[in-house]
């Protein structure tokens, strides 16, 4: 495994080996990220492989993946570092009477009492890592502001200890479902990649890559149907992962063709809302060939 790809094509082939089919722009932006050391902001609808891209990159570059899952109310203590204050207390209690405050102070604010959280872990790791900050749009703006220092300088200031600089350059990916507009300041520091649902051909390739035993014609039919379903105005359109799941489900039940009967039985793999189910059954189901088993 290459430590750093020599060209865009290189990286694309590498990602392919890591079971990820990258589009033209995806490969290019990922390549730029490895070369320029800039974080990448990946946006797009749910389930188009934003998180998967980070995982594939870590596999390809054989780097450790450090993941920070964001949620509302996430704060520095959960994301950056925290003092292990129980241990600090014990330390103070164990201290013999009469030791000066200064020596205790120096003691308890040492690395031994620091609990590293994902961000600090990524920064201070001696081996370069891939840092994935997932669903950054779920956090508050304050947290975003805190990220700025890390993203532009790759350093963290801990008041009691000083500044921790990155020992190695991590590749940083931030993903967002666009549920909230991110601040300009954050965007300015990142490369931007918009991932959308893949074209029919690309998705077919992805499905074939992950479910190679599936018959080619069924796979094509499946991808077409998923495309049709995405056209509808659904609460939650099916993601790529779900088309792969569906392909595997079809394999499992040994379907020979994707007809109305099979579709009705298995459509819950790709559609997950009751109202969506109704819409899909009504609009897509009827367009498929009538059940061949029922007819014969």
């Amino acid at each position, binding site marked *: 495994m290459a430590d750093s790809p020599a060209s865009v094509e290189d990286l694309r082939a590498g990602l392919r080996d890591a079971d990820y089919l990258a589009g033209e722009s995806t490969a290019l932006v990922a390549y730029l990220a490895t070369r320029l050391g800039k974080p990448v902001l990946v*946006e797009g609808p749910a389930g188009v492989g934003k998180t998967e891209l980070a995982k594939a990159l870590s596999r390809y570059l054989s780097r450790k993946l450090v993941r920070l899952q964001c949620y509302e109310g996430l704060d520095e203590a959960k994301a950056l570092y925290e003092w292990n204050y129980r241990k600090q207390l014990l330390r103070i209690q164990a201290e013999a009477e009469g030791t000066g405050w200064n020596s205790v102070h120096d003691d308890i604010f040492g690395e031994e009492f620091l609990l590293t959280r994902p961000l600090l872990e990524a920064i201070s790791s001696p081996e370069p890592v891939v840092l994935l900050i997932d669903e950054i749009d779920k956090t508050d703006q304050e947290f975003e502001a805190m990220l700025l220092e890390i993203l532009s300088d790759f350093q963290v200031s801990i008041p009691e200890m000083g500044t921790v600089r990155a020992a190695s350059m991590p590749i940083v990916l931030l993903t967002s479902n666009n549920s909230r507009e991110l601040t300009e300041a954050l965007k*300015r520091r990142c490369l*931007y990649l918009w991932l959308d649902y893949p074209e029919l051909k690309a998705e077919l390739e992805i499905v074939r890559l992950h479910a190679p035993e599936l018959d080619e014609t069924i796979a094509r039919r499946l991808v077409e149907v998923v495309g049709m379903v995405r056209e509808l105005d659904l609460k939650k359109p099916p993601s790529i992962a779900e088309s792969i799941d569906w392909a595997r489900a079809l394999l499992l039940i040994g379907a020979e063709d994707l007809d109305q009967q099979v579709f009705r039985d298995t459509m819950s793999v790709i559609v997950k809302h009751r109202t969506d189910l109704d819409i899909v059954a009504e609009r897509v189901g009827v367009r498929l060939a009538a059940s061949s088993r029922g007819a014969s």
Partner: protein
Amino acid sequence: MAPPRQRTDLERPGGFAANLVFLAEELRAEGVSSGTSELMDAVAALGEVAWTDPEDVREALAATLAKSPEDRRRFELVFDRFLFRASEEAALREGVKEGEDDQAATAAGEDGAFDEADLRDAIAQAIRDGDEGAMRDLARLAISAFGRRGQGSGVIGVDVQRIRRSLGLRSDPQPDAPQGDPRREGLPREQLRRFEQLLRRELERGSIERTQQLPPSRPLSDLDRGLPGGPLQDLASVHKVVVQLKRRLKTQGQENRGRKRHAQIDVRRTMRASLQTGGVPVDLRYKPTRPRRPEIYVLCDVSTSVTSASVFFLSVMHALHDSFRKMRSFVFIERISEVTEVFERERDFKAVNEAISRDAGVADISGYTDYGRVWSEFREKVEDELHPRATVIVLGDARTNGRDPRADLFADVAAKAGRTFWLNPEPRLYWNYGDSVISAYEQYCEAFECWTTEQLEEFVKALARPVR
């Protein structure tokens, strides 16, 4: 040798870096905010990709300069324009001409063998298949076949439309076309637009070659830039304005607080205070002036002619409902139906949207708006409630489909209500064309064009003006 020309804007010192700065400046002029640090990123990124691959160069620039889907769309337009102008500029400078090509194309056009019907078929086919290369070639052929006949009108937009008409390209289905003809099902709108773009480009190229100079650079038209491409694409910025709308509307009416113009004595509290002074009411106590919540009536057109705008409008209605308790909302197509209850029951915008499209029960027989009927029904429903402090907001395109606008009924409603606003989702340019009768209503209300969030902000300003 090219004739001596005046300096144009693309020939400038500083070489490549300067060109990049100018590109960034054009982007900024179109509303894509790209800072200096991003420009430096762009230079760094370009150092990493192969110069010879135009797609890579474009992607590298886009990744560093355009940071949202909306920006990306603008970037594409600006970048195309920039490249086109740059290459034309270079061609002019070097005196490159496309003479032979042109002649060949003209010959083919005049040649009886390649007749117009064939050309029409070939173009329709290419458009349906979305074959970019074929479309470009055919655009040139079409120009030489149809465009030069009257030597062109000189206005490119007019020429494009004329050629398109003579080619018989339409997006709506043409059932009389023979079986298997791509035009039978109607051509895909997107591809049709693309073909028009190519036509325009080729015409521009021709005119540059004839006149030996670049026309002045034009900003992207508002239509290219502003219209939301997908229904949900621009929802984020709508929400931003709607939040502002809420804030403005909430503070409205507060400025009257404390003004003692119509102060009324609060007898109970005055008596109570008088106990301190032995029953003599020295200290007068007034009833506090409560800010009056304005009453709002919103009518929203949900017919097919305003489909793209109605999501936008419904979200505005939703925001209004958050801020006002005394508010009644109606949606209408042919007849009117009240949806106040839906908005009060559902707090989530998506749920509201679904509930309205499912069971608001808009009585819709023909699917065409009938404004006359809407006014009379609206008047019937709210007649007793309308008073000078009420505000009526109409969201609609004022397209009556040829029916009687009944402006007299609308005038009556407007006269009873204190203020009447009309938000029209069409650009002002289209007002009063076709079956739009906005001018009949405009004299009784304040009409706003409202198809971008900036315009919504304008409306917010007007709405938040203090009521006299």
